[in-house]
């Protein structure tokens, strides 16, 4: 098993994009930022964090927790899709494709919200449910998936997700477009 901090070093752009996505949504919803670490390759603990002003609103909590999932997945897809056709369909090889592919996949690998993000979301969803917000019920399977995803990250679930977004999705999309 490869230690987490080595993976963090190897995929550091993804961590920076992940934390910046949290930050972006905090700012979007007008929440104060108490502390930020964009990247800290430590042996224990998170490789980055954003501590923000607490909020009782469900929407901001949801988007702050899931923002990296959207942003990282989007960047992973766009970056990988740009080199997918030349490699997969035309068999063209260029040295630049390797760093671009690494960038795309490393961003995709950090798309999953952390357990802490899921925990925050879970707490809010429970509160919202008790106050009658039916939509909050949708969050429970998401939280469940996040926990499962983080648990399976020991079995490279994060890498498999990045491969799905960066390689499988472009394959399916091109098939859909051209057939």
């Amino acid at each position: 098993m490869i230690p987490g901090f080595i993976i963090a070093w190897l995929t550091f752009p993804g961590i920076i994009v992940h934390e910046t996505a949290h930050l972006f949504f905090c700012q979007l919803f007008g929440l104060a930022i108490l502390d930020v670490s964009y990247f800290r390759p430590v042996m224990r603990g998170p490789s980055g964090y954003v501590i923000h002003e607490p909020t009782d609103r469900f929407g901001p909590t949801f988007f702050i927790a899931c923002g990296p999932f959207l942003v990282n997945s989007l960047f992973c897809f766009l970056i990988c899709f740009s080199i997918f056709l030349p490699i997969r369909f035309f068999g063209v090889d260029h040295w630049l494709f390797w760093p671009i592919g690494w960038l795309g996949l490393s961003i995709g690998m950090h798309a999953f919200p952390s357990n802490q993000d899921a925990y925050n979301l879970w707490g809010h969803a429970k509160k919202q449910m008790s106050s009658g917000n039916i939509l909050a019920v949708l969050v429970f399977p998401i939280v469940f998936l996040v926990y499962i995803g983080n648990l399976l990250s020991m079995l490279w679930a994060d890498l498999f997700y990045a491969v799905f977004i960066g390689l499988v999705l472009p394959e399916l999309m091109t098939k859909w477009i051209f057939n």
Partner: protein
Amino acid sequence: MREQICEQCGNKYGLNDLVSVFDSTLCQSCGEKRLKDAEQDQITDQSVFSLSDPTICARCGADGGNQEFEFFVEMPICENCRDAMVNYRYPAWIKGFFAGILIITICSIAWNFRFFQARILMEQAIRIGFVQGNVDTATKKMSKAANLVPGAHGLQVLSHYLEGVQAIRDDDSQTALNHFQKCNELPESYQVEQYMLIAEFGVAFDNKEYQRFLELSIKYRDSFPDDPIPEAQIASAYACLYAEEKKQECKEKAMEHLQIAEEKATPDDQKRFEEYRERILYRLETRRILNSEEYYKETGKVLPEETQ
């Protein structure tokens, strides 16, 4: 900064360095000693907590003297820090990092967009050329696609293939042969070998190598034994040999193969076969070897859309 005395050791400390343990104000070390003696279940958030000095900014440590800072997110925060937290500014390196990511993403998409265009053109060329049979338009589209991505070998091969087919239609056998020679790796379904034969006997005809023209025509006929045109092609080759060498035997062979071709011709083949037959008979009659263009010019007949 506010100070207070530790109730245990009697020393004076800043308020931020003191803790409240079971309602007693203690310094860190005295507090730890007290906690060691306490029962685990007595220790709660309410019974043990750090004291906070409202005159010291919790973020930057600025000392307000006697003036208390406003509490923000349950902490005393100075005006500057409050502004920095509310109006968080991204560090320059993060801005640079994201600019880099965006530039890479946009440039990569823009630079590789030609592959997307090439793929669309290629799909159109395949549909137009192979399904609708419009080779001319298909060739143009495939060439355009191949020019967009010169490094894509498979696409270049397909482009050569269509250009070869187009060249055959234009009666430019040498050009067709040059293109087909670059298409060896295409699957059998593309019939490259057969097209090469057509181009080769076209070249042989153009170079007046009629014996070779005959040999290649026989080889071609063997690939399509039921088609009347390849059979007529053999007749055409014998007609050329007759015109050049004046051997009666060649004329007889030409008529013999023309007869076989006629037998093979189905009602669907009649039109193109008849046209070809007339040209061969004209060659036998006049002993002049004309290509299709010259033949139609000389006889004043209308050139059909498709000629062999």
